[in-house]
């Protein structure tokens, strides 16, 4: 490996300037004339052996030698030498810089003063320093492209060697308090590689992402640099609530820590700004603590949980979480009068109001076998013996017996429901060539399969969840099975969840969606930090795609009128754990190991040479001008 390289070898012709320099030195050397009475003594002095010693000869031509040294230094600097410290050079390097929440973690705390200073440096700042050094050492024929990634990836610069642009892009990168997704960054890099060729990709991260990436590498080298380990951290990783039958909410707070975090902390819970309670927890290494608070559900409220660690905590953004609890009420269920079995099963369940007469009111659950009832407004529907209109072309119900071949036991609707012995008199049949994939393309998920087609499908729409029992339950043994009341109970639970009456979970950073407001309105979303953004609700009044990269309250208003105030928190156990993967495995079973060594870059030497030249020039000036004021002319 060559230790020294030159970028502009063509500039070596500048060494030819030595010839005119020497020529001009001897031609143009002008000494001040000094008239003396006699040269007798001076001639003897000049002819003395001591004056003509090699060192004195050197001193006599010191000016020429210094000028030659100066010229050589300048020309060598013009050759743009560099110290090669990497085994292979890369002219274009995309730099993937992680800016997810865990990158805000500070270094490990220590009593040592130097380490204490390091503790104040976040992982992102450490990564910035490393990339900044790379930018400083960028050689003229090298280009760099900076890509930051968290949940999504964003290209900050094109391939450039403009150091000002690169430094500005580095400074603009801020922490996004969301989990990181390295796949997005690698896919973006793949897309870049289609237009620009490069050999090496530098990935700077704390490794807090899944160890398996479903990406096919199209570039030869991925240099995965894992940043130094962060300090201990404790945070709230889950804030949820579950409905109790007595019209109360049980609020659960889960506190977890990183592998080396151990210590006490206090969890303070506020309800609508009023203290609800606090509890001290002790988190052991790698352990977790779950605490519960009971909150009345008589009105909608906002719960804010705040964690106050008693020792150093490297990540602050996971110490707060928010939870929005709706006012608890009975589930409004409409059951078609033609389905008495369902009504009978529903009456055994608490906290529901069963209606058998249709009205204009909205329902939480509609169970019907009549097509006209499909117009009823409901968040959950069970359509019995009805083939949805968009499937009528592909599914035909024939009057022939069939049995359930398979069903999804993990689907919430079919939990603990045994359909194996079910006898059905009508058989939904798919047309030839129609597969489950065609149904999925229409938004349907098959929950139960018959001999020749689906028996039960579900369709999730933005504001509604619909189940379609493609055969009529009255023409089957379903109502007589043990699993039928379980099925109805599951349906009620699903409806409660769909209506937000069964449980509630804290909103996570990332993207907010499914916020039901008024239709086709232009609203202003004001994040906790940064500028407000304008967005429009769809025809259904749903506001979706609201970016929420920061922890805090997001205020949604229209014309100054506040519509909603949503608290968003990190609530990610992986980010709180600050654990990093040492290896990324790709689809083709390739793996890239992390390196924690110092990032080495080719170091340009021209600034050092230029500085030396400047010093030589100053030394020459000082040496030859030091006695100018007292010289005898």
């Amino acid at each position, binding site marked *: 490996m060559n230790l020294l390289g030159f970028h502009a070898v063509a500039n070596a012709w500048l060494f030819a300037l030595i010839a005119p320099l020497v020529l001009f030195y001897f031609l143009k050397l002008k000494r001040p*004339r000094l008239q*003396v009475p*006699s040269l007798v003594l001076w001639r003897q002095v000049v002819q003395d052996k001591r004056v003509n010693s090699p060192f004195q000869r050197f001193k*006599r031509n010191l000016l020429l030698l210094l000028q030659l040294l100066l010229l050589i230094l300048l020309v060598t600097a013009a050759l743009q030498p560099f110290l090669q410290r990497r085994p292979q050079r890369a002219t274009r390097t995309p730099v993937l810089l992680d800016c997810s929440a865990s990158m805000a973690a500070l270094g490990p705390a220590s009593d040592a003063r130097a380490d204490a200073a390091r503790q104040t440096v976040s992982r992102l700042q450490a990564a910035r320093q490393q990339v900044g050094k790379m930018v400083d050492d960028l050689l003229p024929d090298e280009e760099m492209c900076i890509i930051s990634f968290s949940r999504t990836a964003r290209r900050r610069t094109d391939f450039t060697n403009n150091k000002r642009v690169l430094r500005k892009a580095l400074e603009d990168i801020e922490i996004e308090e969301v989990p990181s997704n390295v796949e997005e960054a690698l896919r973006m890099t793949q897309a870049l590689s289609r237009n620009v060729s490069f050999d090496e990709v530098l990935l700077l991260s704390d490794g807090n992402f899944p160890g398996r990436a479903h990406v096919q590498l199209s570039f030869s080298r991925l240099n995965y640099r894992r940043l130094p380990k962060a300090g201990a951290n404790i945070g709230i990783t889950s804030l949820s609530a579950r409905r109790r039958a007595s019209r109360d909410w049980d609020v659960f707070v889960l506190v977890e820590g990183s592998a080396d975090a151990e210590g006490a902390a206090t969890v303070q819970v506020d309800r609508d700004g009023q203290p609800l309670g606090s509890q001290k927890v002790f988190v052991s290494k790698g352990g977790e603590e779950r605490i519960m608070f009971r909150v009345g559900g008589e009105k909608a409220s906002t719960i804010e949980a705040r964690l106050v660690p008693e020792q150093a905590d490297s990540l602050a953004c996971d110490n707060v979480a928010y939870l929005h609890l709706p006012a608890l009420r009975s589930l409004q269920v409409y059951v078609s009068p033609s389905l008495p079995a369902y009504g009978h099963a529903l009456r055994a369940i608490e906290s529901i109001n069963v209606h058998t007469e249709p009205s204009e009111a909205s329902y939480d659950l509609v169970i019907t076998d009549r097509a006209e009832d499909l117009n009823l407004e409901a968040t959950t529907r069970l359509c019995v013996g009805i083939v949805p209109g968009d499937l009528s072309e592909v599914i035909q119900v024939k009057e022939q017996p069939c049995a359930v071949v398979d069903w999804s036991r993990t689907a919430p609707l079919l939990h603990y429901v045994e359909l194996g012995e079910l006898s059905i008199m009508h058989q939904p049949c798919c047309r030839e060539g129609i597969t489950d994939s065609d149904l999925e393309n229409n938004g349907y998920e098959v929950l139960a399969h018959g001999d020749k087609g689906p028996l039960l499908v579900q369709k999730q729409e933005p504001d509604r969840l619909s189940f379609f029992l493609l055969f009529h339950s009255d023409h089957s043994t379903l109502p007589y099975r043990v699993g039928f009341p379980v099925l109805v109970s599951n349906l009620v639970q699903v409806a409660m969840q769909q209506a937000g009456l069964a449980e509630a979970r804290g909103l996570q950073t990332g993207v907010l969606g499914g916020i039901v407001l008024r239709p086709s309105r232009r609203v202003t979303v004001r994040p906790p930090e940064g500028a407000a953004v304008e967005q429009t609700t769809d025809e259904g009044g749903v506001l979706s795609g609201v970016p929420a990269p920061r922890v805090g309250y997001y205020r949604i208003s229209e014309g100054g009128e506040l519509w909603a105030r949503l608290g968003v928190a990190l609530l990610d156990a992986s980010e709180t754990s600050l654990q990093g993967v040492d290896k990324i495995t790709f689809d083709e079973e390739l793996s890239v190991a992390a390196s924690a060594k110092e990032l080495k870059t080719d170091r340009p030497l021209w600034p050092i040479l230029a500085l030396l030249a400047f010093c030589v020039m100053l030394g020459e000036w000082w040496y030859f001008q030091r006695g100018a004021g007292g010289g*005898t002319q």
Partner: protein
Amino acid sequence: MTVESIIHKPQLTTLFGNDVLDRLERLRISSRRRFTSKSRGEHLTGRGGASIEFSDYRDYAPGDDVRFVDWNVFARLNRPYLKLYHQEEEMHVVLLVDASASMGFEGKLERARQLAGAFGVMGLRGSERVSVGSFNSATGAVGRLPPCSGRASMTKVLRFIEQVQPGGDAPVEAGIETFLKYHVGRGIVVVLSDFLTFGDLRRAFNLLFSSGLELMAVQVLGPTEIDPDVTGDLRMVDCETQATLDVTSANDLVDLYQEYRLAFERRLAALSQQRSGRFLSIGSEDELDWVLFDLMTRKGWVQ
């Protein structure tokens, strides 16, 4: 004589003031070897003479002048003894002033003229025959004042010395040799020069010695010759020959220059002493009073 006439007493010479002149008139040149001319003068010789100052007795020898027999001693001892007297002979004082261009630097010639005038005054006041020579041309041509004596010649001597001007590139050894072609008489010679010559001074000093002249060499150097303040790269130009010498880092050579200057002075002193002469080096900025009445008195040059 009024007080005003005393205060405004006209200066006899521009070389020095009347006060210096008054002090000079009380001084005499002190020679070591008593090189004297046969003509009668005021300097006592080692030989017996015809002066009135008694010297010694000796036995009478046939042929001696009976006029010098001490008859009183003969009457007491009944043996003739001859009475001897000191011989008083005239001493020639030669003043040689180097007036080459190099002496025109930093008041060197001015100081040389002052010293020459001082020696001239002392010589004339001591009833010596004083002659003056100056050389300032490349050919060695010498401006010469013939020997003169007596107080009446003081003005003539001083005027001659005042008119000596610097110029030319005459080497001091050539000037001495040329002067000696026209000089007759024994005594002392005061050579006032910087002695900075590429030539050989031994021959010139030998000629002086063989001519019966006791050498009194006075080297006059300027302040920048004694302690040169030079720095950097210089091209030195000889004011007489216009020859040049390139000197690099001159400030680093000053110490070496001093070594050579002192060695040169020691060599001149040795050359003078080997020929029964004396050598003295002074600076052109040294006080005249200090040189004349302190330094030369202490060195025994004058008394």
